[in-house]
């Protein structure tokens, strides 16, 4: 099985091609403000260097969130358009689960993405990568209450947040993640959409006004 991996959701752009779970090509570069202009040259470079074409791919794994809303949408639009047009399998993956593949000494892992206003998109995993708290939009304070041992936890994130704990920059293990999801059922590309974990402010306000 020849897999394409696309992640544009976080502070890193990660593109990869894997034969089953073996990495053939991996590019992990900083995601700056120019994602929209940089993404296709990077995709093209990947296919050139591997001497492949999109048609040669069997399955597309795409990170569909949480993360920067625009960043997530760029990767997901490319992946779903490619999967739909070329009749390829497509499987969405979580950015937080990807970050949690980082190996650390601590027992607990808390991948997070800064969501501003002292809140994050976060989750809690244990050493065996079992989910202790499923991914959600949560205040930092509330998140910490769910961590079993604050002295034995690694916070995994690309940007600093106000927290009294050890922050570790993620060093993701793509091979591990793909292996874990190799039997996931492929979805209809039309139905692969971002997982924002948060509604828009306009929708929240509207909901509130309807309740009041």
């Amino acid at each position, binding site marked *: 099985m020849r897999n394409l991996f696309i992640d544009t959701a976080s502070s890193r752009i990660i593109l990869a091609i894997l034969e089953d779970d073996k990495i053939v090509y991996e590019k992990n570069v900083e995601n700056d403000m120019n994602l929209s202009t940089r*993404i296709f040259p990077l995709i093209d470079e990947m296919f050139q260097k591997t001497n492949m074409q999109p048609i040669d791919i069997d399955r597309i794994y795409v990170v569909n969130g949480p993360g920067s809303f625009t960043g997530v949408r760029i990767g997901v*639009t490319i992946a779903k358009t490619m999967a739909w047009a070329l009749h390829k399998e497509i499987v969405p993956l979580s950015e937080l689960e990807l970050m949690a593949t980082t190996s650390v000494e601590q027992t607990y892992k808390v991948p997070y993405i800064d969501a501003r206003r002292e809140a994050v998109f976060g989750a809690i995993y244990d050493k065996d990568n079992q989910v202790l708290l499923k991914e959600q939009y949560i205040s930092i304070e509330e998140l910490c209450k769910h961590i079993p041992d604050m002295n034995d936890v690694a916070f995994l994130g690309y940007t600093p947040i106000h927290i009294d704990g050890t922050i570790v920059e993620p060093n993701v293990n793509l091979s591990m993640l793909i292996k874990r999801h190799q039997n996931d059922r492929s979805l209809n590309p039309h139905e692969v959409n971002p997982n924002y974990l948060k509604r828009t402010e306009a929708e929240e306000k509207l909901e509130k006004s309807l309740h009041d």
Partner: protein
Amino acid sequence: MKDTYILAIESSCDETSVSINKNGREEIATVVLTQMDIHAQFGGVVPEVASRHHIENITMVIEECLTKANMTMEEIDAVAVTYGPGLIGSLLIGLQAAKTLAYIYHKPLIPVHHIAGHIYANALVESMKFPLIALVVSGGHTELIYMKEDYSFEKIGGTLDDAVGEAYDKVARVIELPYPGGPRVDQLAHEGEDTYHLPIPLDDESYDFSFSGLKSAVINLAHNEKQRGNELNKANLATSFQNRVVEVLTKKTMRALEEYNVDHLIVAGGVAANKGLREKLTELCEEKNIHLTFPPMKYCTDNAAMIGAAGYYAYKLGRVADLTLNSKANDKLQ
């Protein structure tokens, strides 16, 4: 000669649309998915909500259009896309989908300016005879453009503040008409009489427009009537407002036609659907023997059919972009 087919994508605001155009003139199939009802509950387009709907719909709309046209991507010669101006998050969805298709099928990528699309909507009706003057009137634009040939856009005047469609929407809010207010003001204007004294906006020798003064005058008038306990005649206010707008638009347009010695006028953009403007321009152009083209109503709102037409002429001129093409919230028509 071999036929040329353009697949065009438009997602600049709250419509996800895909169209297939043949040789510039012929619209083979168009699909428009509007989010109007969704945004109506917010009283206007919410950019983040719009982006979220575009991504959910984009591949389905492309598929439906190809199915409707009974065509495959292999039969398409080039992919055209609205790169701007518009809502950046919305534009990006159409742009990345277009780039993906262009990349995997090795097709040229044609960037189209949204306003060029509105202008070239007229090419779907009849061929454009140059030189011509285009009056572009929409929620974001009010411009007089002189075109001596394809893709030559010389702006001879434009709005200094609000776009005409914007002024309509604000007036609609003052007289408490539901979103989208512009077309409802136009409708109401046909029921009232021109009784309210309102200033003619920027009635000078330039080709520029200004609608903020007129808009403020309407707001003040509504406020003062309320203070005095007088009931506002909404229909009469709509008529008075519309008459001032139409007066200044038509006056400057007719003068431009004369000065530039042009006998073909085309009207483009959402406000081209305005009945008041249509009636007055039709009357004046008949009088002066000017050939007038209005896009059909279905092309006045945002759609990819017009992007397909504009894309075709851009393609013929070799206006091809590479894969670094970016969306732009604002960009000069060129």
